[in-house]
């Protein structure tokens, strides 16, 4: 079951399910939206068609009935109602389970009961058009082919424009030859015009023939079905008159009757069967299947316009490129260091190599980029489900779903986004009644948007609900001794408390989702992705969560700084400004410790040398440099000796080899082979809050 076609099918079916799901949600809102109905129809149709082609008959049969339902909706016979939507959504869930089954090489229908839903759909359809429901039509194709010789007289006079449909009339003659035996044929050229009148685009001939076959009259008509309406085609079954010379004479061709041809044939071996028996067919089918499997294994299916690759393989390439980047950096350093001793021309080669490495890195990165559309589309259903569950009305607006992001990040973003969306609906958006009282529209608005901003991805989840009650949060935080009353927290600092494990754990209990992902997990996931999350909230205007993320996980823009003899890296994403403070801007405040005046505000200073016990570091801020970083609405200034350079870092996770190291997120290898540690800004902030409490 592990061949390429199946994989392609699974991928396609999943894409189509996604399309269907969002289409159905929109259809529920606009039942008359023909385009979306067509889109949904196409999607279900492709799932069915593909299942047939890929050999998943269980999926094919099940989707067939859903397609029927859609056909009724599409043709306007059935108007979409709430119960249709629910049944379709349920069916989609079943298809998902089927796909899951075939992914694990099980039969698609393992452990799935489709009967109930099929009968529901059948009822919906049968209310419209009586008992005629698809499904029976498979049985209709029974075998009438009891081996029996039939004799026909055919008169074939095609319409003269037959060529215009791309059909060569000779085709039908060869069809007949395949389906039986042409005993005698006469070509009538009477209609043929004078050569001056002759139009090569028209057809002038007609045929009369005797035909012996095992197929039925209807099957012969089927051969001609595409031209029969326009042409004069008569098919006469001669079986009943075969022993009646007078009757036979009426159907004579060039003076010859059918009996002239069958007397000698009659005792001969029965014509070789062109219609195999059901058993033979099955045998043949199986052989074909086997052959197909072997063929697929043995040979290349030919030129393809695209290739699907396992993500694992991409990962491997990515890792190799990471190594390449490290070596490249090392090479750059060495060329600089030994520039005197290096022969002419070496520089140029090293430069070209550097350029190519950069290009490869960009290309490989782009391979892993995926648009956010499927992630965002999924939220149409999520929002609908949560809103229904809460008895609220919510309209979802999606913007910038074409924004591209590293595939690995997209996967990791699903849960945090879901939690934030849930949070907005659970706690932000009010019930319709409450909204009306406040003079808002009864439907809450939820906006999910993505964009690229100065090399970073910005994702926003915004609601127009009640906003976060800051006092309540502060009160709770003080109760739980997360902060002290004396601390004069800024608005941002208060809001960022909702990410504190101590607070959000408590929230889990009230969280109706019961899914156990607290806001602290959201925060830590975003941090893991080297991203930032900010909250903006205004009473009765709503709450906005703003996520800043790097474009990719494996490469990070960083600022290399030195403290004493040590080197650290700060993610550029978190950096707001770098400056050398004036002595008069430095202060020490009792509740906050050491602070610096920065853009109208006092922000805490974090001394790296003190944090990591580094000797020989510059202790006087006005002689050193301060890097202002922000995370989750909080700002702080990190004291370092000097800022060395900005560069792209290939990340190596520390945690595969080490436990989580306080204040450090991961490490990288510098050009000279030294290891530099990357600061975990988020973690720094948490520890800062703790220290101030003590």
């Amino acid at each position, binding site marked *: 079951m592990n061949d390429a076609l199946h994989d392609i099918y699974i991928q396609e079916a999943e894409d189509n399910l996604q399309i269907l799901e969002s289409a159905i949600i929109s259809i529920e809102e606009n039942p008359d939206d023909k385009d979306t109905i067509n889109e949904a129809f*196409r999607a279900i149709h492709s799932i069915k068609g*593909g299942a047939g082609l890929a050999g998943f008959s269980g999926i094919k049969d099940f989707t067939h009935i859903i397609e029927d339902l859609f056909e009724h909706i599409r043709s306007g016979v059935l108007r979409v109602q709430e119960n249709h939507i629910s049944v379709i959504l349920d069916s989609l869930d079943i298809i998902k389970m089927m796909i899951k089954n075939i992914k694990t090489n099980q039969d698609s229908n393992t452990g799935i009961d489709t009967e109930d839903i099929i009968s529901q759909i059948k009822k919906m359809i049968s209310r419209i058009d009586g008992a005629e429901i698809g499904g029976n039509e498979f049985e209709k194709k029974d075998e009438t082919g009891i081996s029996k010789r039939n004799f026909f007289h055919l008169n074939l006079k095609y319409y003269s424009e037959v060529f215009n449909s*791309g059909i060569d009339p000779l085709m039908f003659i060869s069809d007949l030859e395949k389906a039986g035996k042409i005993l005698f044929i006469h070509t009538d050229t009477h209609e043929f015009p004078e050569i001056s009148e002759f139009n090569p685009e028209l057809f002038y001939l007609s045929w009369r023939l005797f035909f012996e076959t095992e197929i039925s009259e209807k099957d012969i008509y089927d051969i001609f079905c*595409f031209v029969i309406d326009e042409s004069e085609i008569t098919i006469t079954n001669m079986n009943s008159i075969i022993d009646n010379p007078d009757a036979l004479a009426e159907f004579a061709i060039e003076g010859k009757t059918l009996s002239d041809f069958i007397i000698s044939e009659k005792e001969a071996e029965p014509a070789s069967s062109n219609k195999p028996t059901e058993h033979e067919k099955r045998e043949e089918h199986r052989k074909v299947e086997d052959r197909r499997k072997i063929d697929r294994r043995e040979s290349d299916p030919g030129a393809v316009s695209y290739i699907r690759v396992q993500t694992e393989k991409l990962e491997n390439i990515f890792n190799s490129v990471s190594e390449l980047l490290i070596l490249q950096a090392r090479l750059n350093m060495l060329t600089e260091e030994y520039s005197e001793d290096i022969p002419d021309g070496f520089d140029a080669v090293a430069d070209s190599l550097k350029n190519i490495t950069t290009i490869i890195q960009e290309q490989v990165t782009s391979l892993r980029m995926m648009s956010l559309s499927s992630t965002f589309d999924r939220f149409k259903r999520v929002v609908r489900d949560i809103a229904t569950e809460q008895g609220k009305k919510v309209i979802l607006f999606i913007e910038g779903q074409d924004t591209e992001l590293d595939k690995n990040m997209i996967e990791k973003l699903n849960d945090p986004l879901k939690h934030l969306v849930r949070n907005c609906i659970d706690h932000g958006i009010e019930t319709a009644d409450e909204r009306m009282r406040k003079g808002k529209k009864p439907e809450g608005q939820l906006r999910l948007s993505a964009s690229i901003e100065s090399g970073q991805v910005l994702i926003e989840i915004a609601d127009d609900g009640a906003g976060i009650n800051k006092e309540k949060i502060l009160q709770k935080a003080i109760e739980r001794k997360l902060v002290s009353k004396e601390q004069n927290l800024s608005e941002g600092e208060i809001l960022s408390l909702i990410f504190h494990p101590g607070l959000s754990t408590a929230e889990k209990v009230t969280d109706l989702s019961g899914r156990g992902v607290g806001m602290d997990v959201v925060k830590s996931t975003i941090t893991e992705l080297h991203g930032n999350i900010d909250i903006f909230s205004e009473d009765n205007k709503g709450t906005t969560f703003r996520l800043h993320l790097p474009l990719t996980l494996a490469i990070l823009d960083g600022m290399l700084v030195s403290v004493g003899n040590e080197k650290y890296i700060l993610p550029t994403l978190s950096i707001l400004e770098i400056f050398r403070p004036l002595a008069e801007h430095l202060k020490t405040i009792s509740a906050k410790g050491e602070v610096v005046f920065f853009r109208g505000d006092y922000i805490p200073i974090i001394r790296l040398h003190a944090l990591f016990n580094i000797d020989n570091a510059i202790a006087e801020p006005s002689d050193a440099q301060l890097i202002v970083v922000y995370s989750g609405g909080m700002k702080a200034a990190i004291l370092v000796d000097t800022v060395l350079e900005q560069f792209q870092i290939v990340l190596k996770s520390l945690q595969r080899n080490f436990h989580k190291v306080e204040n450090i997120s991961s490490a990288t290898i510098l050009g000279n082979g030294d290891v530099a540690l990357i600061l975990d800004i988020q973690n720094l902030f948490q520890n800062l809050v703790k220290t101030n409490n003590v």
Partner: protein
Amino acid sequence: MKTVFAVDDSPTARASIEYTLSKGGYHVELAEDGVIALDKINGYSKPIDVFLFDVNMPNMDGITLIKRVREIAEFKFTPILFLTTESQESKKMEGKTAGASGWVVKPFEPEQLISLIKRFTGE
């Protein structure tokens, strides 16, 4: 080698058509929808022997595509087959009126498709 130009929005269908027909000794050209197909057809310098169009496609459906291809002088008499399913009986007539030469019922067995194409190319 004869060329079949197939258009289907479903990757599975395209993969299956390409696989089947190249096995059957055809050169296969593929397009994802009608608009892309027309573009490709107009720019295609070698002869095309058979067209194979899916009926249900985004951007431009198969029926429209049949009409448009028939309007191209070069393909006035070229066989055009369209892919449909048993549930789309009315489509068959629509396709025919648009100028199609025949249809293929999806899903198809590989042999079926090959023999049908042979039927129209007169092989």
